[in-house]
């Protein structure tokens, strides 16, 4: 896969030397390769869709530097986005409170118990007063396993009485406090599926214990089910972090991205081996590169950074010709970025102002953006091919009426005429300045 992605991107690069900006077709190609790469890494399909669509709006019409290819630019943008999602921005566990409970949850066989042992070992080495306890009364010998691990890492193990897990968890916490322990790492019963009764039990434990950290342990080899699992656990207890277990195998670990994106919780640790010190804090950039299958990601990022610098000092490439639907979408994006309806109204070109009344502008612009996004790259490049059935499909895809699609196309035609006039040096003024700012480069 690693080689696959690289050769795909190399193919893109070969075709696209020396252009001024990314075309729709190139974006389409690059995003398709990215989509496959992410799916092969077992990132959940809804997450892949969301990422690809975010990226599409972000890169449309991006100017290119000669030294970097569109593929490289797209991949580095995706890499940054993934690193941002899994990195979260809160690297350390929050264990300031005394006592603090770290609750570990996950499916059966994900690696919760081993992670509990490793985590206790890591915290003990940070000179925290940590204890281990388990309220897994379902799996045979689960508590024996954790007890044996506790002995190995020399951390006190709090015995629990099989029965009500909530009562047992509370009892374990008081016991830990009596023993002068500040942090309790609590292992819970694995869930085979997203089972309502067991989720309620977990939610009850979390409600009673008010854990400082609620970590979901996910198997690095997990497939599409990660999305449903993340949603269910997050709804039940509100996750604060993700542990990617068994990350020492060669699985790309897309499940971590799925869970982070759906829960908003950062990936905190990687389980990287069978030994008890094999728990590592996450480096978001390198995990993002692993998920994407990028071998030389540091080199790539450096190249892109250099390329962008070079571009800043190079003379601006001027684009001739029409005003494409992709540029229209970009313009809408910039208008939306202005903020409230007032600001937007002030910047609206006349061709749009006629069709839009103040408060409604944001909603209308979003609908227009959705219409353009629902088109294929070919349709965006050549809107003249839009026949009745294509328009119906676009309307369905963007949740609007065919009339609204027609209206958008009419607006686009008017703007395109205007843009052409402008480039010939006529019809400037306030409107011209706005359009020049949003269209010209």
């Amino acid at each position, binding site marked *: 896969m690693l080689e696959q992605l690289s050769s795909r991107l190399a193919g893109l690069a070969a075709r696209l030397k020396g252009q001024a900006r990314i075309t729709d077709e190139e974006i389409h190609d690059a995003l398709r390769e990215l*989509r*496959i790469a992410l*799916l*092969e*890494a*077992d990132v959940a*399909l809804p997450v892949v869709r969301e990422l690809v669509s975010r990226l599409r709006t972000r890169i449309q019409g991006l100017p290119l530097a000669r030294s970097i290819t569109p593929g490289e630019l797209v991949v580095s943008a995706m890499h940054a986005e993934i690193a941002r999602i899994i990195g979260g921005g809160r690297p350390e566990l929050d264990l300031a409170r005394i006592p603090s409970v770290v609750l570990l949850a996950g*499916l*059966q*066989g*994900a*690696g919760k118990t081993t992670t509990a042992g490793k985590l206790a070992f890591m915290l003990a080495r940070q000179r925290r007063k940590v204890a281990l306890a388990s309220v897994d009364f379902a*799996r*045979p*010998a*689960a508590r*024996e*396993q954790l*007890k*044996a*691990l506790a002995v*190995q890492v020399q951390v006190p193990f709090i015995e629990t009485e099989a029965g009500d897990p909530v009562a047992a968890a509370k009892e374990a916490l008081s016991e830990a406090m009596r023993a002068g322990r500040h942090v309790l790492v609590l292992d819970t019963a694995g869930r*085979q*599926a*997203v089972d309502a009764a067991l989720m309620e039990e977990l939610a009850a434990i979390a409600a009673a214990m008010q854990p400082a950290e609620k970590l979901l342990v996910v*198997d*690095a*080899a*997990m*497939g*599409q*089910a990660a999305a*449903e*699992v993340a949603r269910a656990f997050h709804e039940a207890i509100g996750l604060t972090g993700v542990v990617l277990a*068994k990350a*020492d*195998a*060669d*699985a*790309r670990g*897309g*499940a971590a991205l799925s869970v982070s994106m759906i829960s908003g919780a950062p990936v905190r640790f990687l389980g990287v081996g*069978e030994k008890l010190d094999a728990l590592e804090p996450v480096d978001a950039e390198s995990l993002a590169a692993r998920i994407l299958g990028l071998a030389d990601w540091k080199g790539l990022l450096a190249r892109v950074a250099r390329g962008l610098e070079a571009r800043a000092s190079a003379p601006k490439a001027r684009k001739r010709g029409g005003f494409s639907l992709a540029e229209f979408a970009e313009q809408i994006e910039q208008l939306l970025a202005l903020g409230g309806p007032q600001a937007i109204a002030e910047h609206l070109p006349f061709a749009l102002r006629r069709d839009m009344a103040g408060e409604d502008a944001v909603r209308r612009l979003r609908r227009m953006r959705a219409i353009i996004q629902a088109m294929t790259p070919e349709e965006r490049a050549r809107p003249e091919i839009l026949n009745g059935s294509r328009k119906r*499909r676009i309307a*369905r895809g963007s949740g609007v009426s065919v009339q609204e699609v027609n209206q958008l196309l009419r607006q686009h035609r008017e703007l395109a005429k205007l843009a052409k006039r402008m480039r010939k040096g006529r019809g400037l003024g306030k409107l011209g300045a706005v359009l020049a700012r949003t269209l010209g480069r």
Partner: protein
Amino acid sequence: MGLLDRLRRGLARTRAALGLHAPDAHVQEELEDALVLADVGAQLAHTLAAKAARAPDPWQALAEEAVRMLPAPRPIVWPEDGPLVVLVCGANGVGKTTTIGKLAWRWGKEGKKVLVVAADTFRAAAREQLAAWCARAGAMFFAGNEGADPAAVAFDGVQHARARGADAVIVDTAGRTHAHAGLVRELAKVRRAIGKALPGAPHASWIVVDAASGQNAIVQVKTFAEAAGATGIILTKLDGSAKGGIALALAHETGLPIQFLGVGESLEDLVDFAPDAFAKALFARNP
């Protein structure tokens, strides 16, 4: 409960995920997405969807293609003299121990004398967990000490089984990642040790795979298949969140048959794999 019912119960989620009504527009895209969501893998999903979308009844066409792709399980041939020896391996946490408990219970019910050998000498409390399952299943249990050489334990276990007149020996191995060459070599050594204790053994070698696995299951199975001389796959946790489409990817990439499906948490929840029933359950439009 009949096989098909059990399968359907276990795969109810799969059907829900794959949609109960026939798609009208964008047929291929919908098929492809459904297959991807079931863990079939992006490339194979694309190929299968492109082919099925042209058929008058695409879901039916997918089911038929799946039946063609999925190899039938190999029949279990019980040796006339001495026990049937089965080696079970897989990654950590895929459900090996539970599966072995179910197998022991199943064969015990058929009147076989079953002995389970715990050659997982690494994981803390692995023996205790397996012993608990054997007690539930009514099987004999043989274990080495924690930290002992797994190959030696397997050798002793098979000899012990012969002495005790067992009909079936199931050898459990430690969960391991296929990326760890040393552990993979150890698995090959366990297999050779079994062959020394009883020529011709192991008679079958099964890789346990979690149905919730993504595409990494393919390289997992390929690596274990080589080291353990695998003859089949056991797909577990089909009652969970997983859709089980990885079965198609595994068939496509490794050609190994699936022997059994794990469809629940109780002892009887291990069913024989049948390609047509599985495909039907995976793609049927009406439950």
